């Protein structure tokens, strides 16, 4: 049976928050680095080394209902959030086409980066919003 351990939960969340801020600050200084690719790789590896045990600790600190909330939110919120991003992506692409932004005029690397990062932001953002909404609804219904 899973045990509710609030102190460990908040410590793990704090570590995740601190690691997220550190990764953001380090990534922001990417252009000043001599070897940005290697720097990004090392930042990612260091982030994983810190975040992986922290997320495992967080999960183990939750009791069964809190875990159920996350599992339900991941499935329903994540899936429906993903589906909901499709119209946004279509509008996004249609806007680019209609406004005459020709990606061919840009450097290929920049165009690819814009396309990939734009799509990731929309898709992951939609999934995250769906997740948070489903998580809130779950607890509202169990109150």
């Amino acid at each position, binding site marked *: *049976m899973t*045990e*509710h351990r609030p102190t460990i939960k908040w410590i793990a969340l704090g570590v995740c928050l601190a690691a997220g801020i550190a990764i953001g600050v380090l990534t922001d200084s990417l252009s000043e680095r001599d070897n940005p690719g290697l720097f990004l790789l090392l930042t990612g590896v260091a982030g994983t080394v810190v975040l992986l045990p922290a997320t495992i600790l967080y999960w183990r600190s939750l*009791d*069964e*209902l809190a875990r159920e909330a996350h599992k339900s939110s991941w499935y329903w919120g994540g899936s429906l959030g993903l589906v909901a991003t499709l119209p946004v992506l279509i509008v996004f692409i249609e806007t680019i086409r209609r406004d005459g932004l020709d990606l061919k005029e840009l450097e290929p690397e920049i165009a690819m980066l814009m396309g990939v990062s734009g799509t990731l932001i929309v898709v992951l953002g939609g999934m995250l919003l769906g997740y948070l909404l489903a998580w809130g609804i779950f607890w509202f219904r*169990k*109150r």
Partner: protein
Amino acid sequence: MDNRLRVLRAERRWTQADLAKELGVSRQTINAIEGGKYDPSLPLAFKISRLFALQIEQIFDDGETSHD
């Protein structure tokens, strides 16, 4: 699923927080179980039954238990 958890807890003058601490779960979990909005896992149901020294059927009622 109906249950007598709220009654059993009240008989012992425990708060939801007290019971949650005894069972190693959050107060929200106790509240959801008492309100019939969450059915506990089998391990948690056994833990509850051991704490109150009752059989699981004496605490939880799935509506199909014979009362003869």
